[in-house]
């Protein structure tokens, strides 16, 4: 089974070298999606010896990750793992994340911080993000009946079938919760795996207070868009 780590990065020149070194030590293939960074993200990733997909204009996290899925599809990978470029996700936990996919028990696994059975006590979620996450968890349950505790987690693994589906259509802004609804509608199996997150090494989260205030509105519009669309069953 060929596994590809997709690392979307926007101005992550400081976090990337350490993360890429960890990925190398873990022995996985990786591709860095440089989402029109203004710093040396591209050079840093190239110097580490990993392929870099440099987007000439900023597409946001959705467009960046989708580029990674297209790359994985065209290069014959079986599993795609999304890992944030800020270094919060530990590549050592990838083996646990992809285990249910390898066993054929799930098409998508989410690295979760808030699973009641094994919560990440050491990770302190900012208030605005916590509110946004509760909101998207509630609305996802309402729309699909899915009980996902960490809807905003960007630490995910997808089977070939699932990322092939996302290579053709993927939400643009804050796509995490919408992507789960899309997977559920298409008939894919989703599973949460408890993980431990690290604090970001440098830089700032894109999830600012202003964005957090608009997040519920974006989620509602995004969910309505998916629900109004004719459902596409793939799995």
């Amino acid at each position: 089974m060929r596994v590809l780590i997709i690392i979307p990065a926007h101005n992550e020149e400081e976090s990337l070298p350490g993360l890429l070194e960890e990925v190398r030590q873990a022995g996985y293939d990786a591709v860095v999606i440089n989402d029109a960074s203004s710093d040396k993200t591209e050079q840093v990733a190239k110097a580490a010896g990993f392929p870099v997909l440099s987007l000439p204009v900023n597409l946001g996290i959705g467009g960046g990750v989708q580029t990674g899925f297209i790359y994985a599809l065209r290069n014959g990978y079986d599993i795609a793992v999304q890992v944030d470029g800020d270094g919060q996700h530990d590549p050592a936990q990838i083996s646990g994340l992809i285990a249910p996919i390898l066993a054929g028990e799930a098409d998508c696994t989410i690295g979760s911080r808030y699973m009641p059975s094994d919560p990440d006590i050491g990770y302190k979620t900012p208030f605005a993000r916590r509110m946004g996450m509760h909101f998207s968890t509630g609305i996802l349950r309402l729309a699909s009946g899915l009980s996902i505790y960490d809807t905003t987690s960007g630490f995910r693994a997808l089977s070939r079938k699932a990322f092939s589906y996302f290579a053709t259509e993927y939400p643009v802004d804050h796509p995490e919760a919408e992507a789960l609804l899309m997977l559920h509608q298409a008939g894919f199996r989703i599973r949460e795996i408890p993980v431990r997150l690290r604090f970001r090494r440098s830089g700032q989260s894109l999830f600012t207070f202003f964005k957090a205030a608009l997040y519920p509105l974006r989620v509602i519009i995004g969910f309505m868009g998916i629900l109004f669309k004719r459902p596409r069953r793939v799995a």
Partner: protein
Amino acid sequence: MTSFSLIVQTVCLVLLSGLMFYTLWLMRSGRLNAHVTVRWVLVECAGIFAVVLWKWLPLFKYTSALGDRELLMILAVVFFVLIAFLMLDCLVRISTHTTQVKRLTQELALLRTYVEPVGKEEDSTSAKIPIIVQDVDSFKQINGDLGKQDILLIFWIVACLGLYLWDIYPGYPETMKAFFTASYQH
């Protein structure tokens, strides 16, 4: 027809005509797509047509019972709906283009990964290969040749200077003088 509706009719006609000319001007200056222009011009023509036929509108069954103000309201709503349809049409185009730009951006990034390794291999041999593609200025500097525009410019300057000198020369023929000046029309 009351004086109120006459004033409204005049204002509407002036505004709609102005809007139509502006639309046509935008198309002529290349800033508005021809397909979009046709739709907008059709709607503007429909608006002008409705305003021109204003006094005959009460002849119709549904509008005969209405007064000037109600009729004006209905026309305004109809026109607003038409404009809203046109705007939706433009938004559909924008959405399509956004998706296309996103796809192109992604394809460009993916293509670079295939092209760049090839480019790196060729770097070592690039010193031996002479420069094939250059911009016009550097090409002129290297070869010392004149471009077509330069020749035309020199010809034009020489012609102007020649005609000026000929003009101040006492033996300048009157017929030629008349030909090159406004007096030719008289």
